[in-house]
């Protein structure tokens, strides 16, 4: 990818981020009625409403409020929560983010580790019994929403077998063992749907790659099936897997939010849902902004990484 193209992409990311931040900012203005009444409830002293309005900056014009808000957001100040204990939004997000990131990364790793061998097995005997079973199963799994998958896992591993806990969490700082013990079940629930998606995409790509001449020549030289699949076919087939990771990242974040709530883990999902429930717009605003920024930046990085992974793209666009 040429420098000019990369620069254009960066500009696009920045513009999108500005639009998104404006949309997030509008969240409070979208509230029907007076936000101060919505926060405090009816029948309070007028001064109290005025104080809340001033805290939200509602007495200033929209655009200058946006500039102020964006300015302080850029310096890491996302405001103060509107409901007790009135904590600092940035601090709360800082505490919640690692939990969500760990779950998301763990589930991605699980999905990739499971889907690669499954896709290879499927593609190598395309149309066979195993392939048809894996295809049917993965299509079925795609129709199981993540909270349902989580509940089924809880049913088996927590309620029936009693192997794993629900509604408990321990941070990595308290030791890796207990941390993984608490994280594995929610991560599996999130990973299930991604595994199915990745398997299907990689299988189709592998089938295409396995018909190429260089695979034939590798086979003619006497390479075994595993060697051909792992060292020759996997890399050229992995690009749409990467694209798919980018596309399914939004769904992955959504699943993480729901599954965290289901397992009552102290991550971004639980934070955002509790705040939404309590009408804490400022907290929701900050959390949405942070998630959107991460999402847009990661997607931009994935776009940029194609050129480094696939020399053909790099040359084609120079």
């Amino acid at each position, binding site marked *: 990818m040429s420098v000019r193209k990369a620069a254009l992409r960066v500009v696009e990311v920045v513009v*999108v981020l500005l639009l998104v931040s404006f949309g997030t900012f509008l969240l409070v203005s979208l509230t*029907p009625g007076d936000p101060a009444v919505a926060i405090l409830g009816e029948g309070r002293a007028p001064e109290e409403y005025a104080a809340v309005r001033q805290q939200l900056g509602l007495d200033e014009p929209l655009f200058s409020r946006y500039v102020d808000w964006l300015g302080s957001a850029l310096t890491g100040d996302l405001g103060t929560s509107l409901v007790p204990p009135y904590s600092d939004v940035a601090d709360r997000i800082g505490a919640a983010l690692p939990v969500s990131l760990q779950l998301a990364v763990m589930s991605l790793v699980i999905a990739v580790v499971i889907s690669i061998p499954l896709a290879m097995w499927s593609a190598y005997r395309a149309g066979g019994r195993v392939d048809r079973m894996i295809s049917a199963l993965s299509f079925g799994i795609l129709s199981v929403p993540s909270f349902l998958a989580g509940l089924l896992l809880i049913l088996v591993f927590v309620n029936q077998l009693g192997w794993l806990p629900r509604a408990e969490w321990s941070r990595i700082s308290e030791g890796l063992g207990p941390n993984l013990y608490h994280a594995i079940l929610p991560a599996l629930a999130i990973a299930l749907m991604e595994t199915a998606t990745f398997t299907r995409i990689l299988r189709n790509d592998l089938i295409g790659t396995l018909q190429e001449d260089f695979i034939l020549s590798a086979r003619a030289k006497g390479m075994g099936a595993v060697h051909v699949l792992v060292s020759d076919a996997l890399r050229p087939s992995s690009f749409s897997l990467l694209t798919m990771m980018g596309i399914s990242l939004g769904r992955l974040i959504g699943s993480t939010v729901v599954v965290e709530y289901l397992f009552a883990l102290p991550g971004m999902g639980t934070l955002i849902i509790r705040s939404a429930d309590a009408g804490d717009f400022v907290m929701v605003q900050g959390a949405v902004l942070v998630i959107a920024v991460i999402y847009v930046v990661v997607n931009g990085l994935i776009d940029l990484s194609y050129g480094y992974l696939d020399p053909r793209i790099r040359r084609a666009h120079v």
Partner: protein
Amino acid sequence: MSELVDLSTPAVDDPGQLPPAPEKAPGRLRGALFTAVGGIGLLAALLALGNRGWVQLLAVVVAAVVLYLGAANLCRLRFGTDFDLMAWLCGAWLVLLVGAAILAPALPLPEHQDLSRAITEPTMARPNLLTDHPLGTNNFGLDLLGRVVYGARASLVVSIGAVLIALVVGGAVGIVAGYFRRVTDVVVGMVTNSLLAVPPLVLLIALATVLEPTLRNIALALSLLALPSMIRMARANTLSFAQREFVVAAKAMGASAPRVMLRELLPNVLLPLASYAMVMISVLIVAEASLSFLGLGIQAPEPSWGNMIAEGQGDEFKEHPHIVLVPGTVLFLTVYSFNLLGERARQRFDARSARM
């Protein structure tokens, strides 16, 4: 559309398609045997094994699979190897569901919403087809069959409404952007990218924070979710048709831009868009269910599949998993049916997969 169908790609290149069934003709005897054993087993499991819990559930699932294998076998013999029993079953399920949802007030269902009228009913009764509550009751004695049917009303109205809004608005914007290109396209692309820059569920939660959870508002919020991909889809299909001969011919004969878009492009773009809308419905049903599960969507006691699952996920889940499993199964079957039918329709009508 026949030329598009003929151009469609073989199975291996298309991500959605299941691999083809084996060529050899299946045995008639085996098919008949499987059907008979599966059918009898299913009936026996449903009726005779009442209140056995897991054993019954396992027996029902196994018998249903055996019955399906046998019936699929027989159907392939009777109607040819292309016969897709699963697609027909999915269609039948959706017809049943929509029919029940429309006719719900006229059906003799036990109380589904009013707690005071369910006060004499057994609470948390297990599903048993031979009782007054074939799918059991919840923690308040409300009938789960009734709640599932009324929940289907809410889910279907909200998601289908949202998809229709997205189809009309997104289709129009996408065709305009794809036809005029240049500045229009860039601006539309920016706005779509910004909408896509917030993960769907997070966008939905953010909107739910500020909007009243009425059916109309939920449908509007969901349509915002479906909009960007609809626009992209319409735009991509418009691009591939805008260069074709019939469009060039229409322009050469002096057709105005609105006429070209309405009379030449729209009929061609509509089919792939409509089949995509099918898949989108299932995505939105899941989104609505997730939102209601989180307590931000349709509010209890009005039933929706999401809040029914939320109802049973707490302490009751260990002793009475059926409160979760009944709406969960219905949700799964519905999403699966829309996915499968949408996928089949997309393979036929999407210009982009046909062009490859």
